[in-house]
């Protein structure tokens, strides 16, 4: 027999012994031996290739350890080799469920570096697409969250109908649905097509009814309450100290929204409100997202009504060489505070390109939220944080 065979046999033996220990621990119930279960990297609920290593005592989570990096594509390094404009498609692929928000954050940083003034029509179009993106992303987030609670895809498909309409609007505007590559430094790539505004009007007209449907289906659902209330709780203090942002932070009751706190693209001109939760549990996150969709629709209404005329793109050289310096711009992406930090050494490409991903930072609190709950709770909590693995690993 070869050594490889020996090793394999030994491994089998070990595996059997480990299994027997597991069974003993589970059956005797003295909890003497915790079980380590790897959720992922390929698992239905990890929303991509993300690995959660949980230590279980029976069904109770004792420890949760995140292992990330499976989707690392070295974006920040790649971006140092490309011009400022060429980097825009990368930002699509950082958070592929909110490409518009990522485009926007990056363009804002580049504009700050270059000192570009963005025309008002471009500003309004940017707000329009950022908010449409929020509607689409929250639809996805809430749908998958309820899937993680165990619903058999029905709410997800309902929400996908709306997301689909948003993606159709993206397609008719810029030709792409997911990785839009629409924003440019100094504005947007194309002006709005003629058919967009009527489509958007009918979308805005239909949405209140749709949202009422979802509320009827989900909000008073006793099982959803039982699964999500009091689960994955995080205190406002810990949330602030962990630098959480977005709906996860707002669900704890902290009214922090960059669109209000640090307005960009003329958000100060629109009337909208910031919904906050009370308990900081999974259900509050779900409710906050639902309420945010309504607020986004309000903003969209105002954007459509006050859409200014004029150029949609400022005159920016394609191979801009900004002065040496640095810039940081942040936006309220559907997942939280999304920031881009750019350093220029005077060359055509950024010297340093850094992204502050909200998913990654929101995820750091997962251990605090899930320890002490059951395995099923940990899954629900993970779903309620709404991570995008592309953004975590970049």
């Amino acid at each position, binding site marked *: 027999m070869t050594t490889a065979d020996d090793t*394999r046999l030994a*491994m*089998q033996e070990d*595996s*059997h012994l480990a*299994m027997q220990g*597991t*069974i003993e621990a*589970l059956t005797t119930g003295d909890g003497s031996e915790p*079980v380590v*279960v790897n959720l992922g990297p390929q*698992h*239905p*609920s990890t929303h991509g290739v993300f690995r959660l290593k949980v230590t279980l005592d029976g*069904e109770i989570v004792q420890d949760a350890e995140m292992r990330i990096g499976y989707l690392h594509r070295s974006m920040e390094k790649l971006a140092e080799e490309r011009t400022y404009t060429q980097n825009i498609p990368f930002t699509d692929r950082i958070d592929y469920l909110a490409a518009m928000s990522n485009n926007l954050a990056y363009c804002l940083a580049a504009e700050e570096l270059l000192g570009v003034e963005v025309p008002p029509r471009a500003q309004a179009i940017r707000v329009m697409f950022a908010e449409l993106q929020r509607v689409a992303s929250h639809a996805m987030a809430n749908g998958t969250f*309820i899937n*993680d*609670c*165990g*619903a*058999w*895809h*029905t709410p997800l*498909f*309902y929400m996908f*109908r709306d997301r689909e309409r948003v993606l159709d609007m993206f397609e008719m505007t810029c030709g792409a649905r997911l990785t839009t590559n629409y924003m440019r430094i100094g504005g947007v790539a194309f002006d709005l097509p003629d058919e967009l505004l009527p489509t958007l009007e009918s979308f805005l007209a239909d949405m209140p009814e749709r949202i009422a449907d979802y509320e009827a289906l989900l*909000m*008073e*659902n006793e*099982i959803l*309450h*039982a*699964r999500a*209330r*009091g689960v994955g709780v995080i205190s*406002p203090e810990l949330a*602030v100290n962990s630098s959480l942002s977005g709906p996860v932070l707002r669900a704890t*009751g*902290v*009214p*922090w*929204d960059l669109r209000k706190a640090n307005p960009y693209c003329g958000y100060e001109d629109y009337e909208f*409100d*910031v*919904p*906050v*939760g*009370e*308990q900081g*549990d999974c*259900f*509050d996150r779900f*409710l*906050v997202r639902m*309420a945010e969709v309504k607020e986004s629709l309000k903003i969209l209404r105002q954007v459509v009504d006050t859409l200014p005329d004029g150029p949609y793109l400022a005159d920016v050289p394609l191979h801009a060489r900004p002065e040496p310096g640095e810039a940081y711009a942040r936006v309220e992406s559907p997942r939280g505070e999304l920031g881009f930090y750019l350093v220029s050494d005077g060359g055509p490409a950024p010297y340093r390109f850094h992204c502050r991903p909200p998913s990654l930072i929101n995820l750091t609190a997962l251990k605090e939220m899930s320890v002490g709950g*059951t*395995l*099923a709770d940990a*899954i629900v909590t993970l*779903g309620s944080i709404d991570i995008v693995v592309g953004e975590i690993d970049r």
Partner: protein
Amino acid sequence: MTDLAGLSSVFGAWYDFRDLNNLQRLITEWIAEWGPDWLASIVTGVLGALGILAVVGPTLLILIWVERKVISRFQQRYGPNRVGPKGLLQPVADAVKLILKEQLAPRAADKLIFFLPPVLIFVPGILIWGVLPFGPRMSVADLNVGVLFLLAVSGTAVLVIFMAGWSSNNKYALFGAMRAVAMSISYEVPMVLALLTLVVFSGTMSINGIVEWQQQEDVIFILLFPLSAIAFFFAASAELNRTPADISEAESEIVAGYHTEYSGMRFGLFYAVELGNTLVVSGFIATFFLGGWWLWGLDQWVPSWIILLAKTAAVYFLLIWTRGTLPRLRIDQLMSFCWKALVPATLLFVVVAFVERTLILSEGWDTTVALPIMAVFNIALTLGAIMLFARVARPAPLRRPARIRMAGADIGGLRAARDVASRREEPQLQVGGD
């Protein structure tokens, strides 16, 4: 019953499709003319088994299509529509795909025990069909302890599930098997108690006897014992691993539970048995609580098995509906719901059934008057029990409503959070709570 039997003897020719038993009776009588007695009984048994297999096999294929199509319609999509007319051949295509796939087994699996479950799981799945009465004389085995047989046979499936989960040497599979065992054992208790209500009240353990009782008294059991019906429905959907109780193969938590490691047709067999069990349990719910093959005299004109199939389809649709709509409960919630709500409630109704039965038997109450009164009383009791449960047994976090406030001008950190929380005005959105 008597006039129906009379009709059967008049129209009892082999082509009388209202009662498929006629054909079989003719064959056995023909054998009895020239052959030994044992041959006739063996042929009868084989014919019955073949009949069941011939019904179950194609029905499963159709069911896969039906379930996928109905779920698709719930989910605003078309469902299978490519293979064959209306996608009807999709299950065949799936089966061919599954058969052609490689049958993987984990290296460290316990081989023999790993191979057996997909086959063994079929045994209880098929055996149960034997006691389902499709008509007055149309069950393969009309046992006088049919209810006992049903519970005993369906209880063995959990052993097979545990074999599958243990032998896979996979933690998800083991968790799934553990959950399945815990849940099956727990939910068998309310299931037994719910059936005990019927057994006590109708005074028979024969499944056909229970249907005949409903026919005789002109009432279906769901009206007399609604809570037993609800409890049986929920317990059955828990035993079947269907949402909202599909924790033993909770996809979002433990991938596929006990059959995570099974690939190809082995997975297909688990899947098929699951569907078959769903169908047969729908059939039993229809039989026990909805009157089975009997429908207020209509069964004299429409073949009884068509009536049963129609009722089964209705129950099955309800099962698909719950599956398509509801999220899943957690294991501790399911357990506490079983032991704290279903078991006491069904036990209460066993006592109620005893009392009411005594009133009819010993006190000589006239059933035509007593049954409606009892039905009204029991329905009121059921509603009361459900409302009491909703008030008393809700877990603490659910008592408070979840509230969403609007921050307004207060934007900032913890201090702003306190400001928003301390506002007196009504919150924007308030859901749940007592």
